[in-house]
C-alpha cells in the first residue's frame, strides 16, 4: 500500500466540481508535485487531506490510517503538516512562538501540570525549544527569532510557515505554492531546502507549485490537474511533454 492514497475523490462546491473523481498515490520518501492552472483544484486537494472538507465520494488513506475517520485536528497526529497558499501564521506572536505552537502535538503536559509549571513541564519546554532551535538553524531564521510575524517581509513569512510545519516533526509535508511571491534567490533557497527536507530529514513532500523550474528541479513525480481531474501523471519530463498538459496548462504560457 502506498504512503498517501487518494481514491476516486470528488468534492463539489454548489455547481462547481472542485475535485473530480481524482485518484493518485504518493510513495514514502518522494517529492511529489501537483501542477495545473488556477482553479484546477490543487489547494482543495490539500484541504481535503487536512479534513477541512468532507469529500462527497472516495477515500483518503495515509500511512495505514483512514483520514476520513479523523477530525481536522487529528490529522497532524498522524504526522501530516502543511503550509497555506496565502500564509496562515499566528500574526501577533513571534517567530519563536509560532514554531513552539508547532510542537503542540507532542504535548505531554495537561492543564494542571501547566498551571503549576511542574519540573516535567519545564523539561518539556526546554526540549521543545531545543527542537525548534534546530529548525531555526536549518532554515536560517536566527535573525527573526524574537520578531513578531506582523512586521516581517513576505519572503520570511513563507519560510517561517515551512519552519512551523517542520516543528511538528511530520512524516508528510504538504507545501501549497512554497515559491509563489518569492524572489529568484529565495526560490533557489527554497529549492535546496525542499531537497534537504527530503534527503536529510527523510520527510515525504507533496507540493503544489507553478514554478516549473522548481518542480522539475526537486520532484520525482508530477501530477497535472485541470478542472479537478487528472490530466497526466509521470516524471517531470513526461508530464511537460504530454500533449494534454501542453494544451490545458502550458499552452497558455507558450
Amino acid at each position, binding site marked *: 500500500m502506498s504512503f498517501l492514497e487518494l481514491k476516486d475523490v470528488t468534492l463539489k462546491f454548489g455547481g462547481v466540481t472542485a475535485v473530480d473523481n481524482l485518484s493518485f498515490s504518493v510513495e514514502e520518501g518522494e517529492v511529489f508535485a501537483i501542477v495545473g492552472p488556477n482553479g484546477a483544484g490543487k*489547494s*482543495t486537494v490539500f*484541504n481535503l487531506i*487536512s479534513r*477541512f472538507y468532507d469529500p462527497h465520494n472516495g477515500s483518503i488513506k495515509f500511512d495505514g490510517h483512514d483520514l476520513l475517520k479523523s*477530525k*481536522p*485536528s*487529528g*490529522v*497532524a*497526529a498522524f504526522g501530516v*503538516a*502543511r503550509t*497555506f*497558499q*496565502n*500564509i*496562515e*501564521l*499566528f*500574526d*501577533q*506572536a513571534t517567530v*519563536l*512562538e509560532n514554531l*513552539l*505552537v*508547532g*510542537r*503542540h*502535538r507532542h*504535548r505531554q*503536559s495537561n*492543564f494542571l501540570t*501547566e*498551571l*503549576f*509549571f511542574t519540573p516535567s*513541564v*519545564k523539561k518539556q*519546554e*526546554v526540549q521543545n*525549544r*531545543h527542537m525548534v532551535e534546530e529548525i531555526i538553524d536549518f532554515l536560517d531564521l536566527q535573525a527573526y527569532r524574537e520578531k513578531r510575524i*506582523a*512586521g*516581517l517581509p513576505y519572503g520570511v513569512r513563507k519560510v517561517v510557515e515551512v519552519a*512551523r510545519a517542520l516543528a*511538528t516533526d511530520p512524516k508528510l509535508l504538504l507545501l501549497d505554492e512554497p515559491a509563489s511571491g518569492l524572489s529568484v534567490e529565495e526560490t533557489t533557497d527554497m529549492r535546496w531546502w525542499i531537497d534537504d527536507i527530503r534527503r536529510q530529514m527523510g520527510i515525504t513532500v507533496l507540493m503544489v507549485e507553478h514554478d516549473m523550474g522548481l518542480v522539475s528541479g526537486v520532484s520525482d513525480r508530477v501530477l497535472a490537474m485541470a478542472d479537478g481531474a487528472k490530466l497526466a501523471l509521470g516524471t517531470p519530463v513526461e508530464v511537460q511533454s504530454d500533449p494534454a498538459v501542453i494544451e490545458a496548462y502550458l499552452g497558455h504560457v507558450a
Partner: protein
Amino acid sequence: MRIVFKTDYMQDIRPWKDRYQLVLYLLLLTLMLAAPFVIDAFYLGELNNVLIWAIAGMGLMVLTGHTGQASLGHAAFLAMGCYTNIILMEQGLPFMLAFPLAGIITGLVGMVIAIPALRLHGIYLAIATMAMSILVDDIIVLTEPWTGGVGGKYAPSVNVFGIMIDRWGTPREFYYLTLGVVVVVTLGYINILRAPLGRSFIAVRDSEVSAQAIGIDVARTKAISFGISCAITGLGGALMGLFAGAFNNETFSVIISIELLMMIVIGGLGSIHGAFFGAIVIGFLPQFLSLSKEWVGSVFGGSNVAIPGLEFGVFGMILIAFILFEPMGLYGRWLKVRTFFELFPFYRKDMFKRQKSYLKTERLR
C-alpha cells in the same frame, strides 16, 4: 541603552528576562505590601477595588485578549462567583473552601455554556454572551430562595486562617486577601501562557485553520479558555461581593460587562499588564472626573451640577480614542516608551508600525 544577552533557554522560559526585570517586579510587590501603612483608608479601599477589577480583567483577558473570543457577558460570571461563594458559606462551608469552589464551579458552568456559544464568531458571540448577562438578572430574581432576589444579600465577614476579615472592620486584612488572590491568579496565568495551553489560545486567536492543521482542537481549546476565564472572573466576583458588602440582582448588570470589556481594550488586549492598566483607569476614573468637575466648577463658576451618565460617556470617548490611536492599549503605549529608553538613542519612529495586512477572504484557496 539596555541589551539582554541570552545564553540559556531558561531565560525565555522563566517569567522574567533578566535580574533587572525580576528586581523591578519584586519592588512593585514590596510597594503593594507596604501600601496599607503608607496610604489612608480611603485610598486603600480604592486600591483594593482596582485589584479586584484587575482579577476580573484577567479573567476576561484570557478569553478575549488571548483566545480572541469577545464576551459581553462576563458580569454574569462575576454574579455567579459572588452568589456561589456566599451560598456555599451559608451552607456551612468555610470561606477558604467556598472561595476556590466558587471559582471552580463558575469555571465549569462557563465551560458548559461555552459549548453552544462556540459556534458563534465575533459580533454574534458578543451578542449571545450579552444576552446571558441580561438573563442573569432575571435568574437571580427567579431563584430568590437562594439568592435573596431583589432584596439582595449582605456579605458576612470571612475567616482566613483564623483571622476574621471584612471590608469595613478590617480594611487592611481585606486588602491583603485581595492582594494574595491577585498574586496567585497572576502566577497561574503566567504559567499557562508560557506552556502549550497558552500558546494554543494564541494560535486559535490568530488563525483557526492553521491551529487545526497543527493538531489543536479549536472547539476544545475555546471551551477550556472559557472555563479558565470564567473561573478567574468568578473569583473576582466573589471578592467584589465581599467588597461591596451588599448586592442584589442589579449589582452585576450588563453595564458591568461592557465596562469590563472596555477596560481590557483600553489596558491593552493580549497582555496580563493590560488587565492591570485597564483596572487602574476604571478604578480611578470616578475620582478623576469628580476632581475635574470641581475644577471646572471653580474656574467657570456654577455649582457642581450632576451630569447623568458622564462617567460612562467619558469612558466611551477614551475607548474610541484608544481604538483609533493606540489599538494596543495603554500597555502598547508603555512598551513604546520603554523601548525608546532601552534603545536610546536608536529608536526609530516606525518601529511599531504595523505592516499592511492581507485580506483574509478566500484564505483557503
